[in-house]
């Protein structure tokens, strides 16, 4: 939203320097502690979504590489799982510390590769990444007290596939509990955001992590499919789309592989007539425009009590008009770039469908940069439950506004979805919060706040938003033989 000249708040550009990060022209796969080329020599390019500049050329893992990496992880598993928990803990503490030390570098890198604002990588992603390693480090020597029996055992080799919306944070969610519990990992980052995982390989090197304990295999969907299907993988963890999640569930059917899935969402953000409007507006903005709405637990359906609809929407539109869209490296930027051309076209086509089906789109005046992938923050009014934009996950900065009259109607509408990941409740009335939270079929319910994360807190979905929990004591279960 290039600030209109009439605005009282003109900002000078405040770019973060990109000199803190040194991106090599090419990267290999990270297998058994070494960077190596793909067996078939394939490579792909990763670009910066805000400029379309090619950042680096990345080796693309094929089946032979998956086999090698799984073999390396299997070999490393023997020693790693036999280490006293207190020693594994120290490696994880080292990793957490090195991430803190290098957090500025990693934040800039993540912003370059993903397109999200530096404000978010610096203040949300990186602190949480370090916090996850700290949290799970402390579990490594206390597993017998975790409530999973007297001597819980690791599963073996974990095959992990993560998405592009929080590349390093999702890596932390996957790798920290896996290593703490004594598993070794082969992780596939997303094809559009492989860089921070490869930098993480360097963090592992600095921490002196034994070879083969962590292996990183950049690639596309077929790389992930090969990893998930590999017969020597004992545990599969996936974060991504529900469609791919279902495919993975079919792949592991009939095997002994343990599976956890963190999939899509269509979170309802419910605002009652007694809600503190200004705080609710901030929560709605944070709920749907954080990370350009590319968040599985985004509050993408606003359910507002009919009596305050006009007041709330006026306030919300006014707030949207102050959001600043542009260079993600600028510290004043609220809305960065969409992660890829492909995602941009998906958002665009769903928004066109929303308009075609009769919902009314609204965006603040907004000038989009001429290169890169951009989408203006958008809200739709006149949305009904039957509309595609009220049912399908858009995964972009697009909010659908629906109304309700009674708490029962709000609950019914909130639950009217195949998904069940997150929800929000805004009201000053405590009993209403508890009553509504109790009835919502969602794994995370934020009351008078939204999009809060913490390593101590289990996160995960009901219904088609997947199964299993990440974070907290619950997150350990996914990586332990608890039978």
């Amino acid at each position, binding site marked *: 939203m290039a600030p209109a000249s009439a605005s009282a708040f003109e900002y000078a550009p405040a770019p973060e320097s990109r000199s803190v990060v040194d991106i090599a022209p090419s990267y290999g796969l990270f297998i058994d502690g070494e960077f190596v080329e793909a067996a078939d020599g394939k490579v792909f390019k990763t670009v910066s979504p805000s400029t379309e500049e090619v950042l680096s050329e990345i080796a693309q893992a094929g089946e032979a590489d998956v086999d090698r990496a799984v073999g390396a992880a299997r070999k490393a598993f023997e020693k790693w799982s036999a280490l006293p928990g207190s020693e594994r803990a120290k490696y994880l503490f080292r990793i957490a510390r090195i991430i803190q030390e290098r957090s500025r570098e990693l934040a800039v890198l993540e912003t370059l590769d993903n397109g999200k604002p530096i404000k978010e990588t610096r203040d949300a992603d990186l602190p949480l990444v370090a916090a996850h390693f700290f949290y799970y480090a402390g579990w490594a020597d206390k597993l017998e007290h975790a409530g999973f029996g007297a001597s819980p055992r690791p599963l073996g080799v974990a095959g992990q596939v993560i998405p592009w919306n929080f590349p390093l944070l999702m890596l932390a969610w996957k790798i920290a509990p896996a290593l703490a519990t004594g598993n070794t990992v082969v992780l596939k980052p997303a094809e559009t955001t492989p860089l921070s995982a490869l930098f993480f390989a360097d963090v592992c090197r600095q921490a002196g992590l034994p070879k083969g304990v962590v292996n990183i295999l950049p690639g596309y969907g077929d790389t992930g499919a090969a990893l998930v299907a590999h017969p020597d993988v004992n545990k599969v963890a996936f974060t991504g789309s529900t469609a791919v999640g279902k495919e993975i569930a*079919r792949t592991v059917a009939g095997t002994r592989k343990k599976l956890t899935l963190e*999939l899509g969402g269509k979170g309802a953000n419910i605002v009652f007539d007694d809600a503190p409007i200004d705080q609710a507006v901030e929560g709605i903005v944070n709920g749907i425009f954080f990370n350009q709405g590319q968040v599985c637990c985004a509050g993408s359906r606003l359910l507002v009590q009919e009596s305050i609809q006009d007041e709330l929407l006026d306030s919300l539109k006014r707030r949207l008009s102050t959001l600043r869209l542009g260079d993600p490296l600028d510290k004043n930027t609220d809305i960065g770039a969409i992660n890829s051309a492909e995602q941009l076209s998906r958002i665009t086509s769903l928004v066109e469908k929303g308009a075609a089906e009769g919902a009314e789109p609204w965006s603040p005046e907004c000038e989009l940069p001429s290169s890169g992938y951009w989408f203006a923050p958008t809200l739709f009014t006149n949305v009904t439950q039957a509309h595609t934009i009220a049912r399908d996950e858009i995964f972009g900065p697009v909010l659908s506004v629906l109304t309700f009259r009674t708490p029962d109607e709000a609950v019914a509408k909130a639950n009217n979805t195949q998904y069940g990941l997150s929800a929000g409740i805004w009201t000053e009335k405590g009993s209403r919060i508890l009553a509504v939270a109790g009835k919502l079929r969602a794994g*995370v319910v934020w009351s008078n706040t939204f999009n809060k994360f913490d390593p101590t807190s289990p996160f995960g979905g*009901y219904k088609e938003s997947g199964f299993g929990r990440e974070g907290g004591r619950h997150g350990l279960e996914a990586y332990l033989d608890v*039978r």
Partner: protein
Amino acid sequence: MSDKSEQQRLSVFKTYKLYVGGKFPRSESGRVYEVTDSKGKWLANAPQSSRKDARDAVVAARKAFGGWAGATAYNRGQVLYRVAEMLEGRRAQFVHEVADAEGLSKSRAAEQVEATIDRWVWYAGWTDKIAQVVGGGNPVAGPYFNLSSPEPTGVVAVLAPQESSFLGLVSVLAPVIATGNTAVVIASESSPLPALSLGEVLATSDVPGGVVNVLSGRTAEIAAPLASHQDVNAIDLAGADEVLAKELEIAAADNLKRVLRPQPVDDWTATPGIDRLTAFLETKTVWHPTGSLGASGSAY
């Protein structure tokens, strides 16, 4: 000696029926199949459920879910304990049925039935404790209070173990309903009679209609529509062989049902852990700001 006492009294056979939605229907298909004891002697004609019966049972289970999940844990515990009381009263009947079903001596069958009743009591005691064991507050690094609590997954399809017709059945059913789920149970294919009789006990034990639904028939035939049913939230494959289990797990992926794969059980009489309780629980984490009353301290 009178003629009457010399004459063998002709016993009254029982027509075994399904238990669906608190009622005892015959299969809508009108089919039955012969159930025999371990020596091949005819025991009864059990209803051979159809796909339609399975779907009706899901409707009943869904309808019952809100009330059962919403009941207090204390109340659920009382209801489950009531089932144990009724089972105790029908002990002799179940000893007889289990002995026939599994080809056991009266004393071995009695042991099985006693273990089953005790198992039910064990799970009755879990209803108001599991939330404390697997839930709790999380020490988040910020001015927020958050709490993780377990909640039932929803409607659970249960393929009862094939070999252990009563103890195995109760060992997989009780944890499902103790945690507030509702169940559609497929009885052991060859030995369904104890399961069908359990339905009669449940019906007179304050368990709301639809919370447990018992079907008998061909396991594979009934399980298929349950595994692919969009309104079933989870499936326990205890009674499926390897081939069927894989098929059903693939079908279950369509709506991402929670799947409990067949677990080898060496000894059904051993006290179970809580895995079967947690297998059909979701974790919900609710956040709220705490505000700050002059708290201070370093961020690191």
